């Protein structure tokens, strides 16, 4: 369960202070697949960043399970992101000098140093995203869709409670977008992972079981 309680966030642009989210509250059920739609500047990425502990709210609380991540310091936030959340970006953000296998394995490798890692899990998730045969390819040798699937595998390999995706199809053509969203839906259904996708693309937003729209800092359900 993800619960946002009266969350506010503003940014400073020059001398102006621009409120992006004001007293926003919402609840996301465990195992749900939620899409949040909104135009550029609506605050949907900020919302995702807050849930991913990339930023702290100016006020309000964010509960992931029973933990209030809005009070985390930088170190606690890093541990939270490392152990509990998978994050997927529009531009994949793979490390170009690591192969697909290594990019995925990195997420395991950075977890608690003393714990023995099960690297067979890397092969499993690459199999799940359909890239077992490209495991040793470098990112630039893969298509955009394949790179995004590597990014998804990287987010999944550590069994996160929540998978956050920021415009995951924003850089892909329609066919590739469909493949990626199919994968998200399958992961949500088969593994019960809570998936939260923010997008400006209505066709992607339609794939959510719960669909929300963010407009002027207010989150409203889409029927």
């Amino acid at each position, binding site marked *: 369960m993800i619960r946002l309680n009266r969350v506010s966030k503003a940014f400073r642009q020059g001398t102006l202070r621009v409120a992006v989210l004001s007293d926003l509250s919402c609840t996301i059920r465990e195992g749900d697949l939620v899409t949040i739609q909104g135009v550029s500047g609506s605050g949907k990425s900020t919302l995702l960043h807050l849930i991913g502990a990339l930023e702290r709210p100016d006020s309000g609380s964010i509960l992931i399970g029973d933990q209030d991540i809005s009070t985390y310091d930088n170190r606690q936030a890093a541990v939270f992101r490392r152990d509990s959340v998978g994050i997927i970006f529009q*531009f994949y*953000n793979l490390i170009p000098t690591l192969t697909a296998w290594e990019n995925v394995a990195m997420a395991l490798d950075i977890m608690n140093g003393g714990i023995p890692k099960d690297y067979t899990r890397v092969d499993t998730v690459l199999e799940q995203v359909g890239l077992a045969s490209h495991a040793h390819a470098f990112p630039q040798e893969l298509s955009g869709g394949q790179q995004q699937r590597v990014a998804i595998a990287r987010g999944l390999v550590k069994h996160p409670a929540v998978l956050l995706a920021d*415009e995951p199809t924003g850089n892909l053509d329609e066919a590739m977008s469909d493949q990626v969203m199919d994968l998200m839906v399958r992961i949500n259904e088969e593994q019960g992972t809570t998936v939260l996708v923010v997008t400006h693309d209505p066709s992607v937003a339609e794939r959510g079981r719960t669909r929300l729209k963010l407009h002027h800092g207010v989150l409203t359900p889409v029927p």
Partner: protein
Amino acid sequence: MVTIVAIGVSVTIGLYAAMDSLNHTLDTVYREGELADLEIRFLAEDRQNVPEVRDIDGVEEVETRLIMPGYITLASGRRLPTLVYFLPDEWPQRVNPIRPIDGDSFSPDSSSWCLAERSLAAYHGVRKGDSLRVQVGYKAYEFHVSGVAFSPEYLMSASTGNFLVPEKGALAVVYTSQNQFSQNMGFELVSSISFRFQKGADAVILRKKLESRLSERLQILEVIPKREQFSYRWLSLDLEAYAGFIPVLIVIFGIVGIFATFITFTRMILSNRRGIGTFMALGYDFRHLAFAYLTGGVILACLAFGLGLFISFPLRDLFMSAYAQAIGLYQMYPVMPVRRVLLGGALSFVTVGGAVAISLRYLSTLTPLRALRPVQNGGKRRFSGNLKMGRGFAVTYALRNLVRHSGLSGATVFCIALSLAAVMAYFIALTSLDRTVEGFFRGYPWDLIVDFHTNLWPEDVEELAANQPIDAWEVRVKGHVTFTSEAGEYDSTLIGVPASAALILPPHRIGTQPPDCQKGEVVLETVLARNLRVEPGDGLTLRSGQQTRHVRVVGICAGISGHTSFSRIDYARDVLDIGETSSILIAKASADVEPEDLADRLMQEPDVAYITVQSNIVGSFKALLEEFWVILRIATALSIMVALVFIITTLLLSVMERRDEFATMKVMGVSQGRIGAILITEAMVQMVLGILVALPISIWIAFYLAHSMSSLWFDVHLQPSLANYLVVAIPAIVLSPLSVLPSYRYLVSLDLTDTIRNRNQE
């Protein structure tokens, strides 16, 4: 980049200015100290019998004195060789004046007072008010020390007579009134005349006239023009060697500066590709863009020059004081010649200008479309498969990144290698010099060299040796001669060596060794041969007293005096006209006696003037090298600093380019510790690779340095040791993690969401 170029500028200006300051100090002290232009020493004679020379044109001042060798018995029981200068009544002296620096001068009437030369105070603790007992021959003089004095003749710490090596405190010098001696003798005895010439006088012609006039009534023993005066000659030779070391440093810092500037500007152009493409699309051509970068280059060159000039002042003072302390100079006159400042400025502008020009070649190849097209800079097949995740993501990522930016990494490694190789080479060269010198002295079985007051007949030498615990002994003769070739006239100390000599011989270089010389043949020391521009087989004119002979050079030997020549002993006796007498005894002590103890016993003999003990001369040479070790330690710190600054610069550039990758890692939860580990791995790998590349380069540079030293002193055989490398490598490796601090701070302060947003806007 500015710091790296500035260090090169500061080293160039600082080292040359230090050398100029030392030369200026030498000139100033000798000029203000009114050092004699010429000194002629002769067998002591009644002053009444010394020919008048003031009437010779060009002679400005004349000063006579009596110099007598003796010894002082130190509190430890050791006997310290001592020269007593009996000075005329006029005070202050007109040539080589003695200046009290503590206490007072003595009155000519106060015959029991003396001034102690400053080495006696500095190294043996003699102070104003002390009593000194000086044994001269059979007579003991009791003095009260009226003060401590400085004389330009002893600018350097007093030295031994047989090797051009200053030995701190090895010789005591005491100045007293001539009345001391004349009262005992009933007449005024003198043994030295010093001259100061009028400005513009021809020193060579004057010298000939003076020698000719004085030899009418005096038996001349030695003629010492200013350039042959011990401290003047030693400092000149030493500074020549010192100057030989500087160009290597300038070349290395210049290359490193060019690389640093080239990398900086190339990265600037690469990171501004899109901006450049936009300007080109708007109609700006290469000349406009090149002008903009060149303007930036000029500003950076000015900054580097300004910073370098600022640093060069303390650097000059540091080198100068280290040198002065090592050799015992107590007075310094620092200068900052304009030509050295201009040289530093030229280095800055040539380095930056050259590097910017090379960088602009890439800019000239850009078209608007090419500039605007994104650059693919990612993984490559060539490094897949070898690096596995098993060693940890941080190490894998760090190593892969170095391979990805192979050009930048290679340049960084090369520059680190160059800056470290330079100091490694100096360590190798100095260690080799140290070992070569020690090997030479230890390679022969001699323990002592004993100089006599006056030449002794064979039976006297035999008697002296027979009464001492000596296992083996040989004699030499020594005297002043002058060689003339087309290159000019040069003074030399001619040493006659017996055919059977085995206790010590000069280090052989080319041709015949002295014992194998025939009549009319001489072996010259390298520097003397170089000055005379002669090689084995060439002829020379040799002058001794009023006699002139034609001799042939048959060999060249190494040495550190720069003016010694050798021949067979019988020929040398003939040349010097000294019959069968000998000037020097070389001895090997019996197994049951320490050489120092034997030296003490021999010092009691009235005929013995001075003793050189092998272990002391080796120790003195090692102490002298200390000046270079001090300078080298400073240079090591600078070189490591350059290497670190280079890593700081390139790592920061590389990290800024990989900002998104690090942001992704932080988003994924990679700890700051792991990010630090990535950076430290990259820095340390580059440093270690730099050190490995530095090893062969350092040998190559060391060969050059050894060659430079060989041309002045000994043939230096390279004998690198592990310590030569470790003394540079260990601090460099230990300090290399510090070079990641700027990059680490940059990454720690990275705003994740801003970075991600900017990435998404690209």
